[in-house]
């Protein structure tokens, strides 16, 4: 029977990684996610499951260790926070280009630059629209509870391997640091090389045996004709992910006149805003994207015909709101409310913003 434990988001995620049968974690400390590597070092998963944990000399080294181990077909993860993800973006682009599955966690803090160590959501663009160079996509999952921090580890690995693509958990400092009740998953066994090949195919650098051609992991092709074919393949894969893997949650949207769109910590705040609004007779709902990429465009497009407006609530200057605008296609008003620099909005100020931006203008 599953047992409920009180845990920090960062620690729940680390424990979930061990239990997901991860083969390796490579990381570099940065606030507010250092508990991930601290927890793993303390737990000594090498003894529990054989999982490797290594503190690298930099985020650059850590992501390239993920590249090397991930290209061996192993379940490998790293975690960092905003400035560290900027450093890792080179490696992330290489992994997307080389089609290496892996899990990257960003426990976001406010930026730009060194910014602050308080929570933020200003890496939405970086996570969903690039960050690194080239035409690539990450599968981006946004947890809004400690339970989801734990659950999304195994889900990310599954998606990453299904599509041979890096996956990202885009969390924030609030969810990483808060303690909450969590049901941890059962311990899974780490996969043997034979099992990896059976499940996912024989693409990884496992050592060239006589029965196959050599496996090469590279993002390079100097012939533009072939590089374009590779790019077309990537885009077809992304299209398939968009069709199959879009995830979101609706709260009180069925009768809503105004829909807030929010993820992560902002989505938690909006649940309280729904309650406050409905007490005043305002029919509010929340559409919470669970996958930020692929973005849940269709339900938003569908609601655009029915509602009086959307409010994008984010801890940034307005990033996801651009995707909402694209989904709404001008059929309803779309506004944004956000705090920046590590500030977290109160539910009452969000409600006030919604009334001012959407209702008094109507």
């Amino acid at each position, binding site marked *: 029977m599953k047992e409920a434990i009180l845990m920090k988001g960062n620690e729940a995620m680390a424990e979930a990684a061990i239990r997901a049968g991860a*083969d*390796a974690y*490579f990381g570099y400390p940065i606030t507010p996610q250092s508990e991930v590597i601290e927890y793993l070092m303390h737990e000594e998963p090498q003894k529990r499951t054989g999982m*490797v944990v*290594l503190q*690298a*000399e*930099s985020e*650059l*080294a*850590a992501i*390239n*260790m*993920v*590249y*090397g*181990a*991930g*290209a*061996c077909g*192993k379940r*490998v993860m790293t975690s960092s926070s905003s400035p560290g993800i900027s450093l890792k973006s*080179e*490696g992330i682009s*290489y992994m997307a280009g*080389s089609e290496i599955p892996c899990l990257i966690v960003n426990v976001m803090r406010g930026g730009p630059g060194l910014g602050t160590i308080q929570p933020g959501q200003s890496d939405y663009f970086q996570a969903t629209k690039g960050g690194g160079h080239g035409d690539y996509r990450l599968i981006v999952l946004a947890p809004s509870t400690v339970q989801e921090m734990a659950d999304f580890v195994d889900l990310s690995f599954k998606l990453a391997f299904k599509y041979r693509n890096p996956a990202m958990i885009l969390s924030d400092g609030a969810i990483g640091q808060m303690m909450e009740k969590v049901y941890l998953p059962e311990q899974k066994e780490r996969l043997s090389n034979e099992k990896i090949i059976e499940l996912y195919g024989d693409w990884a*650098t*496992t*050592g*060239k*045996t*006589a029965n196959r051609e*050599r*496996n*090469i*992991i*590279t*993002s*390079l092709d*100097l012939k533009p004709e072939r590089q374009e074919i590779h790019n077309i393949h990537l885009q077809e894969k992304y299209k398939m992910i968009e069709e199959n893997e879009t995830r979101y949650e609706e709260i009180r949207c069925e009768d809503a006149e105004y829909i807030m769109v929010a993820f992560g910590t902002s989505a938690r705040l909006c649940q309280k805003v729904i309650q406050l609004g409905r007490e005043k007779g305002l029919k509010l709902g929340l559409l919470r994207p669970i996958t930020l990429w692929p973005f849940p465009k269709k339900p938003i497009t569908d609601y655009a015909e029915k509602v009086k407006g959307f409010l994008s609530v984010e801890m940034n200057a307005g990033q996801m709101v651009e995707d909402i605008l694209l989904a709404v296609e001008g059929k309803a008003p779309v506004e944004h409310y956000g705090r920046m620099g590590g500030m977290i909005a109160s539910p009452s100020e969000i409600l006030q913003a919604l009334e001012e931006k959407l209702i008094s203008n109507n």
Partner: protein
Amino acid sequence: MTTSVLTPEEIIKKGKVVFKKTKLINDVPLSYCPGCGHGVAHRILMEVVEEMGIWEDTIGVAPVGCSVLAYDFMNIDMQQAAHGRAPAVATGIKRVYPEKYVFTYQGDGDLAAIGTAETIHACNRGENIVIIFINNGIYGMTGGQMAPTTLEGMRSSTSPYGRMVQTMGYPIKITEMVAMLPGVAYATRQAVHEAKYVRKAKNAIKKAFENQRDKKGTSIIEIVSNCNSGWKLSPVEANKWLDENMLDYFPLGDIKK
């Protein structure tokens, strides 16, 4: 007493093969300039892997630079790393496959400029890998710019009046630097521009792979090589220049064993 003189055709028919290309080098044209040392370095590396019988358990990491396409030529599983990150990539491979043989093949810009941190820290952790470091004192692939190992006074496209150490710094002896780290089991500087050096360099590479087999720590083989295109010399002149200029500053031999 005399024997009838054999023609070359008869020798080929009756004699034994004393040298042929290793099966671990693919039958594709090498992308390197005529006379470039990369070809010899590739060959002796793959000969060692073949002679030790470890090709099924060897994973190589190619760099960014002229040898970025090394994986096209070596008939083993390989990964291509971002510029300078090969030692981190090799660390990732070795940590999940401790029983495999892992090597990086890197140039001077890759290993001693952009990848300095990854080089030093992989060596400092004593990662049980082999690092093959080709030092030709120049950035070949991008067209002959100054490298961290460009000699004082040496011309390149970004030091057109010669490297001025007052403003451009000194050529870096990174093999000596990492040799002082306790994680490094073996650090040596070799060359491949003459047959006698080729033989020694191959022995050094063999020793490095044996170290990896015996879990002794990091082995780094620097190979002082040429870049006749970048140096704007003929292949023969470039090797002469190497012999007369490079080896004073980068003396050959074991630095730590």
